[in-house]
């Protein structure tokens, strides 16, 4: 096995590769880590000199940016269209694709590991998780969903193979997602978890759902290939009809983990 935790993008990315360590896999891991740093350099809104910062200030054009910037902005546009504007690449009026960059970067890092033969691995980018293959032969990955109201506690456990699990919430950073429709911080949901096949998309949907609030329940339930789970500030929770496929526990009397 190879495990690695990398501090980048203001958070920590954890790699958990369930294969015998080989020089090829270690090289792929180093490549994935390098990729994350490159994403940070290009997309960070905290770096005044990043392409995205300069693009946002109108100092450069999209044509002056690496191709990935256009790819991410296209994804942002698709997420915005799918969410009735609840996802936006310009929260607060400034170019900031952070609502999906992290998930997108993890998705790509995971693909790099798979391409090197690491079919079974998990990459966790600050709480957004891409699971490849399974945890062990015959055993699916088990992802704890952090309880936003109970630090250190879990609200549910998502079990499955080849999954993306993204959570957006107010747990650590407070109400930081704005509802683009009102311009006010989103506060109807304490956290939303989206399970899908692709982490860039799951990340975008989770961000949008947090901004959308209670209406997200119906919206997410209507999206193909998506399951979702939310914790309310009251401690209540809801989930979409597909979610118990990944988390049988929530269908029981109590969905809290003992």
């Amino acid at each position, binding site marked *: *096995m*190879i*495990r*690695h*935790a*990398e*501090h980048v993008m*203001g*958070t*920590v990315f*954890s790699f*958990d590769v*369930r*294969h*015998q*360590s080989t020089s090829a896999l270690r090289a792929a891991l180093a490549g994935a880590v390098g990729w994350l740093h490159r994403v940070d350099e290009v997309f960070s809104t905290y770096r005044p000199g990043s392409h995205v910062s300069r693009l946002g200030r109108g100092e450069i054009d999209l044509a002056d940016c690496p191709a990935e910037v256009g790819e991410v902005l296209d994804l942002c546009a698709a997420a915005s269209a799918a969410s009735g504007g609840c996802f936006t690449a310009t929260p607060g009026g400034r170019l900031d694709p952070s609502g999906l960059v*992290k998930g997108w970067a993890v998705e790509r890092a995971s693909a790099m590991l798979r391409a090197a033969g690491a079919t079974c691995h*998990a990459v*966790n980018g*600050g*709480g*957004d*998780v891409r*699971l490849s293959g399974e*945890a*062990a032969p015959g055993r699916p*990955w*088990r*992802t*704890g*969903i*952090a309880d*936003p109201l109970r*630090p*250190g*506690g*879990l609200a549910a*456990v*998502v079990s499955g193979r080849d999954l993306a*699990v*993204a*959570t*957006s*919430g*107010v*747990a*650590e*950073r407070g109400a930081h997602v704005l509802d683009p429709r009102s311009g006010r911080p989103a506060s109807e949901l304490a*956290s939303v*978890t989206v399970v899908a096949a692709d982490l860039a998309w799951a990340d975008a949907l989770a961000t949008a759902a947090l901004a959308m609030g209670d209406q997200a329940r119906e919206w997410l339930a209507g999206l193909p290939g998506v399951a979702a789970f939310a914790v309310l500030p009251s401690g209540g929770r809801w989930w979409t009809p597909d979610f118990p496929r990944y988390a049988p526990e929530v269908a029981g009397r109590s969905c809290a*983990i*003992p």
Partner: protein
Amino acid sequence: MRRAVLAVLATVVGLVLLLSFKPHDVGPAGAPPAAVAGGGTGGTLGAPGGRGRDHAEDGDRGDDEDDDDDGVLPRPGATGGTGTAGGDTGTAGKAGQVVTGDAVDTRWGPVQVRISLSGGKITGVDAVVVPDANRRDREINRVAVPILDAETLAAQSAQIDTVSGATYTSEGYIGSLQSALDRAGR
């Protein structure tokens, strides 16, 4: 084939404490788990070249019996210090037990951990000795130890591999359940 490994991460300023634990080894007369102290990585998690286990490798995949210690820092000489404070040793399935690990000297001072068991399952973890040479240490320990308890219990009961949650900061990661899982190498 559940791995009976419990790893505990306590973040006390600059202190990483790892506890390797095998419930089936601990009977009323069994050896207590050893508490082991990690190299001083608390302030430099993830830093390249750090002495911690941010990049641990384990070539021993698939052997559940032998790999409990994999990736865990070497045990100190297990000499004495066996504070097995026996609880009720009635029926095996129900017996409540308290097992105290060896006290280990670290560069920050002695560390000792105690585990409560019931029916072979962990029901509680706490640190009985933590460095508290100065007021700041004590303040930090007051916070770090309860966090450690809650996270350890949650991870143990849920058998999880990773954690999804609202984005944590680099600092927030250090005391997080994901951090404990990364270090446990489970």
